[in-house]
């Protein structure tokens, strides 16, 4: 069954992820479900009828009629500051989706999975990690997560717990500005050594999901191609500041 058009959702919870981001929990009556990696459009309407819409990745599997959307604040943005500061629990907002059927991990695909996230690009990848666990799948997953500093890690406690409890989930961090104390690595942008050490060899024919800002996705997908991965097995989602 396919529903189109805008649906009315209600904000039921908002969880802070970092200083500049939060997860909105929305209740959408009769939500039809979604696949990990899909996104939704959220729309705001001013009192005079002016409207603004933006696309956001869904960061968790559906829990009945509840969906979770993780929002990064775009400084001076039009929509994200309102979603983070203006919208109150109980307020209504319009949602459309789920959208996108390509940047999607399917439970039935037995191939090992590499997830490469830059900054807030981790949100749809987290939906895949959570969906895998929820389904009891043992498909091996690796996440390489590029962040400016430790303070910028989304879902930090949950990722730590999941890695501890799950032998077939690995997470490696790349710090671009500030390396946590006690680690010997230098701050750097993601490169061949990171993908070589923490990704899968091309012969295993993994599926690679890459999500982040344009420059990040260009760099990572070029490296994966150079490392021998079939371009069709590299799925990308690029975003710029969209307000």
């Amino acid at each position: 069954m396919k529903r189109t058009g805008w649906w009315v959702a209600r904000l039921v919870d908002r969880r802070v992820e970092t200083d500049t981001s939060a997860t909105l929990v929305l209740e959408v009556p009769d939500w039809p479900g979604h696949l990990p990696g899909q996104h939704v459009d959220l729309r705001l309407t001013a009192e005079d009828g002016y409207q603004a819409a933006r696309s956001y990745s869904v960061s968790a599997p559906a829990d009945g009629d509840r969906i979770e959307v993780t929002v990064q604040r775009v400084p001076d943005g039009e929509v994200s500051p309102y979603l983070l500061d203006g919208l109150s629990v109980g307020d209504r907002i319009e949602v459309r989706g789920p959208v996108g059927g390509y940047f999607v991990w399917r439970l039935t695909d037995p191939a090992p999975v590499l997830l490469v996230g830059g900054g807030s690009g981790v949100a749809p990848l987290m939906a895949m990690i959570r969906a895998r666990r929820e389904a009891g799948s043992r498909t091996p997953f690796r996440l390489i997560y590029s962040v400016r500093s430790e303070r910028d890690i989304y879902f930090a406690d949950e990722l730590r717990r999941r890695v501890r409890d799950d032998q077939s989930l690995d997470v490696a961090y790349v710090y671009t500005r500030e390396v946590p104390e006690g680690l010997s690595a230098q701050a750097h942008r993601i490169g061949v050594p990171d993908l070589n050490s923490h990704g899968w060899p091309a012969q295993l024919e993994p599926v690679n999901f890459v999500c982040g800002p344009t420059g990040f996705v260009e760099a990572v997908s070029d490296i994966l191609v150079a490392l021998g991965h079939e371009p069709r097995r590299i799925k990308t989602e690029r975003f710029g500041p969209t307000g």
Partner: protein
Amino acid sequence: MGIVSPGFQGRRRPTGPNLPPGQYLTEDFPVLSAGPTPRVSLTDWEFVITTETGAELRWSWDEMWALPTETPTVDIHCVTHWSKLGTNWQGVSLDTLLDGVDTAADYALVHSYGGYTTNLPLDDLRDGQAWVVHQYDGADLPAEHGGPARLLVPHLYFWKSAKWVRGIRLGLTDEPGFWETAGYHDYGDPWREQRYQGD
């Protein structure tokens, strides 16, 4: 009118008659593609129009740019809600490329290096509505924006303007392309907000 969000003002950037419904203006040039950026060498590059009978017309890179070019200045509209006004391109009009092509086809399936496809009615490629472009803003088109050459069909959502374009297959029936198979609208008119199937 939708559900009013108390206190939401919006940014009220210039809207005016050039902005289709649900779009906002951007000054930068976001990139959206589903996979890695293909790198195509100009010596291997070719552009092929294939008719419904299998007849083929081919242009090498040098042959293509020996044709007369145009410099359209157009507004572009992405389905992810951004629009960019007054963009400058240089390329060959599809009218030039289709001139003399003997076809009864109603539909076109555009295909690209890297495997991307998108479909549109053949009429939407005619009458000064579409170009194969290799220059953006006076410089070679960067690979992440579809270089060495992309299709430009600015009156439809920008996913129809296939990056890394390689050819067009003409057909008597409509065959959905990459995003059209994944739930996006078959036609994609931004002024009618045809984003997704059923719009």
